[in-house]
Each structure stands twice: as C-alpha cells, then as structure tokens.
C-alpha cells in the first residue's frame, strides 16, 4: 500500500470519528443518527398499567392548577377562539382534558370538588364504538386517539360515560411538537404519554397540584406510590356499575 493511500485513509477516519453516531454507506457520505435523551426504544408492554388516585379531600374548591398545567403541557393554552364564535360557544366547545367537577350530596349538602378526565378504562366504551380503530388502548393501559386514523365521527364522545373527550372544530395554528392537533379529530387525556415514552415518572397535573391530591403511577407495581395509597385508603371508581375497571380512582366521593 502506498503512502498517499494511507494518508487518505487517515483523513477519512478522522472525518468519520468527528461526527458522533454516523454510519458510512459510501465514501464521503455519512448517514446521520438523531441523538435523543432517553426515549423508549422497545414496545410498551402490559407489565405496567398506568393509573391515578385522586384524593378529593385534598382537592381545593376554586383551585385550577392541574387544569392550567395540563393546558400548558399539551398545548391547549395555544388554542384561540375561532373567528365569529361567541364566548359562550367557545367555553362550551374548547378542548379540555381535565374538567373541574363539583358534586353535591343533596341529603347532607356536602360538596366535593374533583378533577375529571379520561378514566383510562380497562374496557373502554370509546374503543368499542370506534369505527376505524383510531380510539385504542395501549398495552400499558393508556387510552388514546390515533389522530392519523380518526375521522371525527365523535361516536367515542357519545359513548364515554365521563364526558372526557373534546373535539377540535377549527384549524389549529399553534401546536407543540409533543402534542399534534388538527381540525376534525377527537382528543382526551393521555396521561402525558410523551413523558411516559421519554422516561418521565410524573404527569403535569400531579406536578402542579400543590395540595398533593393527585398520585400517579403503575397500578401493577405493589410498591408504587399509587398502589400503596390504594391499599391504605378506601377508593372508588366513578360509575363502577358499568364495570369498566377504570385506571383513575377517587377517594371520599
């Protein structure tokens, strides 16, 4: 091998090692590899089931921190009122993943405040009725909408006993990278799925709740905070009579 060839090879190697995580397919052509923090590289499994416990005794009346945090995390605060729509219509139709609900016991007069969102049922009615398979339950228990296949028929909105889903009526100008959003699709709480897939352990609403009313975690892990709390306190599923086995549970309702 002649000297010039060796030098070329050295220069070439230097070029290759200079670029991190690059593959060579042809001389001088490097294929780029995208460097990410710690995103998931294997499929989700049913070894975990994500869920939440909401302690309604801690949930303060008039506080909406979880709703604002959810809006910010999922780009809902970027939505604008469509031109020509009245304030009343917009308040009624604007997407909300968490609703603030107040329950009043008519016999005793006791009022309970609680956040109501997708309950992530084990047997979700929204998935049953979806004609395209867009509404689906992920292996780890998260019920979500594949917007690529959603046709906007809104059967799922009618089927949901919790009124948890929203519909996007108009074109959306601003959206976040993690939560795409467009006209004609249904959406609802996905337990901050982008955090699940990137190694996060909390949800935005849990982080925002200064009263500690929301505990999120793996229902199948007996040592998780949420399982420990459920073993300790009496909890209920809302509309337990429907036997949907919800992933979101409440205390003192």
């Amino acid at each position, binding site marked *: 091998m002649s000297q010039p060839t060796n030098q070329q090879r050295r220069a070439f190697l230097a070029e290759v090692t200079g670029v991190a995580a690059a593959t060579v397919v042809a001389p001088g*052509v490097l*294929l780029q590899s995208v460097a990410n923090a710690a995103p998931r590289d294997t499929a989700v499994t049913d070894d975990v089931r994500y869920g939440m416990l909401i302690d309604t005794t801690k949930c303060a009346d008039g506080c909406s921190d979880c709703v604002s945090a959810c809006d910010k995390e999922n780009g809902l605060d970027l939505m604008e009122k469509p031109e020509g729509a009245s304030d009343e219509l917009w308040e009624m139709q604007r997407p909300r993943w968490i609703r603030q609900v107040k329950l009043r016991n008519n016999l005793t007069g006791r009022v309970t405040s609680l956040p109501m969102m997708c309950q992530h049922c084990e047997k979700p009615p929204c998935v049953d009725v979806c004609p395209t398979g867009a509404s689906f339950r992920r292996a780890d228990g998260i019920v979500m909408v594949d917007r690529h296949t959603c046709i906007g028929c809104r059967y799922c909105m009618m089927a949901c006993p919790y009124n948890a889903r929203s519909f996007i009526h108009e074109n959306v100008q601003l959206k976040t*990278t993690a939560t795409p959003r467009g006209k004609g699709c249904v959406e609802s709480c996905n337990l901050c799925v982008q955090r699940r897939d990137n190694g996060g352990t909390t949800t935005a609403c849990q982080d925002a709740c200064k009263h500690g009313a929301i505990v999120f975690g793996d229902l199948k892990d007996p040592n998780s905070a949420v399982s420990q709390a459920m073993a300790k306190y009496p909890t209920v599923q809302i509309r337990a009579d429907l036997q949907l086995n919800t992933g979101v549970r409440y205390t003192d309702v």
Partner: protein
Amino acid sequence: MKRKSGFSLLLVLCLGLLGGLGTAQAGEGVEGTARADKLDACVAPTATMRRSHFELIKHQRDVTVHLGIRKTDNSLAGCVDCHVRKDAQGKQVPVNAPGEFCAGCHEYAGASLDCFTCHATKPTGN
C-alpha cells in the same frame, strides 16, 4: 471523489430550485442555517430520502403512536428539528412556509403536504 461531486451537483441544483421558488418576502429562511444544510446526507442516502421519506415517516407514526417507540431516526419531529431554517433575524421559519425545505419540493411536485395540519412546523421544545 466522483460520487461526492455528484452529490454536490445535486445539492446545487436543489438549492437553485428552492431559490427559484422562494419569494423575496420577509422572514425567508437563510441557506445554511439549518443543521441539515451542513450535512452530506440524511438518515438514509439522499436518493432514498427523496423517493421514500414518506414511507419512513408513515411507518414510524404507527410504531410511535401505538407502541410508544420514540427512539428513532425516522420521526417527523426529527425532520423538522434538523431541516428548519432561520431568517435574517435569527427566527425559525416554518418548514411548510413557501419555498422552505418541505413546501419547496411539495409545491414543485404538486403533492399535498398534510403533516402540518396537525404537526408543529418548528421545534417547540415539548
């Protein structure tokens, strides 16, 4: 060397094409400000990307949405992150703006560009 110069020629042609399509309005992306502008090739050879980028993205979307796999070279977020250019003021220009990376070719080819009715056209950080 021959191959490299071939690619350079293609690049020059492509730039000429984009330049021809781009209008002289404010906020136009400046060539060389995207990370991709400084690289020889994308996640697959240029010819493959030109012919099949939509197949890579379409496959990836199902894998990501249903299986939760986000560690990939084929995510649309990755495309936008690498190909977004900045204007003279240093502000990022949406990739679907006239003449920008995505819209430039799609306009020329007359192929509709549906990704961005829902997906972010600039990296948003979250």
